[in-house]
């Protein structure tokens, strides 16, 4: 790893914005003091966060099983709303207030990679367990474990219709059931080797045959995973270089996961996606190859892969610093953190994210939300971002507390003087890295009017082009 500790606030801001959701007030100075390398190591080895736990303690359903959520909603359908509110609220609070920033960010990344859609029937009840049990525990573990947990979770089996993927049977002269290719295709195209790996339609059918019988126990009561051997196609199969003899059962899918999880095409596909997330919309080929090499040599150890990314010269290269536009979620969370906001009720935040085109857990297609920052630049989303910033800084956001006046005053600035307010926020939050034009424009706000000077200055800085990129 380069020696980032010798570098200043700009490097600290870069690290906090790439490996986390951006700095809270004073954090750049604290992290520089602490040491950037040490901060990275701590992020790669997340420890319990008791402060976050106490913030989340008022939520009751985050640790419920799918069966318990089904029981709850069977008794009172309105409970579904509570469950989903709690899930989305916890996501925002974790990102804004959690210490384990990298773990939160990777949970978001891998959930999006193995996307499921909250408004898809049964998944409303299974999505809480899906993120908690199938995604979160594995984001710094082995990709093989993540792949197995996500692929065979009832939320995924439902979303990609695999619970309906069965060996066709003849019942009284009628054919019942049959192959459903949905998950077999996405397993190859989106989850592992990628669409350019060179597989054929035949591989999709064979992967689907391997997946036959892997389904869900009962959609309205237990909601648990169940393998039905009678629905499994026991014939011999050939999937993208893997031969499976006839007579196989549930273990076939594990062999397929073993085969795909450490396939060179998977290493490449995932390394490119991670490099896109952490370095650039268009990452250098050499970087992708190097990260893929770490992936293969470590047997798909995701902590090693991420460590390899942070250790690459490209991660720190000036050419990529502040060049990646933030997604709506990255923008909103970074603005809340920069404002030193306390989030009690994220309802307004979730509405704003929907306005910006990224409602939480509600990406319909299995591709997930775009990983390219440039895809999120458009006037409608930009206007929503500016309005989010202005609302936030002026204290007009219900359920969120942010006070630009006291932020500036506590840091020794004069909240009624535009220049002092702008310079204080620049130093405290951004480590003095804001562009001269941004700073001087914010310092030009008038000193009269009903919205306090510090709130206007803070709002403009949060709405600035500097805040749109990481």
């Amino acid at each position: 790893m380069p020696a980032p500790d010798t570098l200043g606030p700009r490097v600290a801001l870069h690290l906090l914005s790439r490996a986390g959701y951006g700095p809270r007030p004073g954090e750049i100075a604290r992290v520089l003091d602490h040491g950037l390398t040490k901060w990275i190591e701590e992020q790669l080895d997340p420890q319990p966060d008791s402060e976050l736990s106490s913030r989340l303690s008022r939520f009751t359903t985050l640790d419920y099983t799918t069966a318990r959520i089904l029981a709850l909603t069977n008794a009172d359908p309105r409970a579904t709303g509570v469950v989903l509110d709690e899930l989305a609220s916890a996501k925002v609070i974790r990102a804004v207030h959690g210490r384990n920033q990298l773990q939160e960010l990777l949970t978001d990344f891998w959930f999006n990679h193995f996307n499921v859609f909250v408004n898809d029937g049964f998944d409303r009840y299974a999505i809480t367990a899906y993120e908690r049990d199938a995604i979160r525990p594995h984001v710094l573990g082995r990709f093989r474990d993540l792949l197995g947990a996500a692929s065979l979770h009832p939320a995924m089996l439902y979303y990609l219709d695999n619970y309906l993927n069965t060996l066709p049977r003849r019942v009284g002269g009628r054919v019942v059931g049959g192959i459903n290719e949905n998950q077999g295709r996405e397993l190859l195209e989106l989850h592992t080797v990628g669409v350019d790996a060179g597989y054929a339609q035949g591989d999709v059918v064979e992967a689907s045959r391997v997946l036959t019988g892997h389904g869900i126990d009962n959609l309205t009561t237990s909601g648990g995973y169940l393998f039905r051997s009678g629905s499994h196609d026991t014939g011999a199969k050939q999937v993208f270089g893997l031969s499976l003899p006839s007579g196989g059962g549930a273990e076939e899918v594990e062999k397929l996961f073993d085969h795909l999880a450490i396939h060179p095409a998977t290493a490449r596909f995932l390394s490119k996606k991670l490099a896109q997330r952490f370095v650039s919309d268009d990452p250098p080929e050499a970087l992708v190859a190097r990260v893929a090499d770490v992936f293969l040599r470590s047997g798909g150890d995701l902590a090693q892969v991420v460590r390899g990314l942070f250790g690459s010269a490209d991660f720190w290269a000036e050419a990529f610093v502040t060049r990646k536009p933030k997604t709506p979620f990255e923008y909103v969370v970074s603005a809340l953190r920069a404002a030193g906001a306390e989030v009690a009720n994220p309802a307004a935040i979730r509405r704003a994210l929907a306005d910006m085109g990224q409602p939480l857990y509600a990406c319909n297609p299995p591709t997930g939300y775009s990983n390219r920052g440039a895809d999120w630049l458009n006037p409608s989303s930009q206007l929503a971002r500016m309005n989010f910033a202005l609302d936030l800084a002026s204290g007009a956001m219900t359920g969120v507390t942010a006070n630009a006046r006291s932020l500036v005053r506590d840091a020794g600035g004069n909240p009624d003087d535009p220049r002092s307010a702008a310079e204080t926020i620049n130093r405290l939050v951004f480590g003095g890295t804001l562009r001269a034009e941004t700073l001087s424009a914010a310092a030009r706000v008038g000193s009269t009017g009903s919205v306090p000077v510090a709130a206007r200055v803070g709002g403009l800085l949060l709405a600035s082009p500097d805040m749109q990129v990481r």
Partner: protein
Amino acid sequence: MSWDPSRRVFIREAGLAAVGIGLAPSSLMVRSARAAGAGERVLVKVFLRGGADGLNLCAPYADSEYYNLRGAIALPRPGSAGGVINLDGYFGMHPEFSPLLPFFDDGRLAFVHAVGNPQVTRSHFDAQDFMESGTPGDKGTATGWLDRAIARIPGSQVTQAVSFSSQLPRSFLGPEPVLVAQTLAAFDLRARNWRAEAETLLRVMYEADRTAVGATGRETFEAVNALLSAPASPPANGAVYPNASVGSSLRQAAQLIKAGLGTRAIFVNVSGGFDTHSNQLQNNSNDYRPLGQALAAFATDLGGLLDTVALLVTTEFGRTAAVNGAAGTDHGTGYCMMVLGGRVRGGRVLGRWPGLSRSLLYQERDLAATVDWRDVFQELARAQLGIAESLFPGYTPGPGVGVTT
């Protein structure tokens, strides 16, 4: 990114001067936006994401193979309960499209069947990418086909190309400015007592940013000011739009066309349950009901202005000819387009029907494609935007299917 974001800069000199002297530039922006004028032809592309099944959108009910293949999800013949609506004695449209029947009957709605991607892929993402870039088989194309179309017509105001979607669609990717919005209602800066000051100072910040972020900020303010100047126009002629997002998108598309802000190309993104791997009958009804209502309301609302419009409904691929094991269909090939507009040669099902017997199916599973969608896209671009030269690198489009006059 291989296109140059600085080419997206189009803030007028007048706007810049106004910022310099500390004035809100709204009044100056209004005139430039208005200058484009109403009455020019408009191309609307409605994209059904997910691979909408053409065989149940426009069903070949007179082909007995249709009933053999589709089994439980075949739509009944015309006249039966839940049956298709007869179009020409051979094809029938989905029963939820009943609001569209008057437009088919008076020749303003056409279907184009068995359209497909010449480079067959059953990946949603690749098929959409190929279709929107207009270069099947080549993922490296930097621009979308509608961006290339807009580049060939005069004018550069942000309201010239509009997309009702949460993100810039691949069709519009490229240097031309595009207004991307989910809703145009309340499209203004929310700074109660200091709006003019906030706009002025934010403009200064975004003017100084020479990246794509700065360009987006400048487009944002141009759009805000253009839309503030547009007169409010509630739906006319008794048109009633459904609540679904396709309804609000088409209602706003009609408003833009009526406002005369120089809009020439509109993209409407529809992300419903078109990827019908299971429970297809219910999913299709849920999606086609609001789609039919919204298209009928759009045509009614525009009245005589529908003569200036050609609206294309398309998707990325069709679905398997046979029902699968879950009362659904998997990813396929040939699909069906709809074209609505005052000058459309409608009242017919166009294209060349390949048939459904097993030997005629593509790879013995999908409706074969006999019409290249590039030919239809080009035909519509020629009729609506006056573009004669090919919009598709490496391909010379044929005359099309005769859907325009």
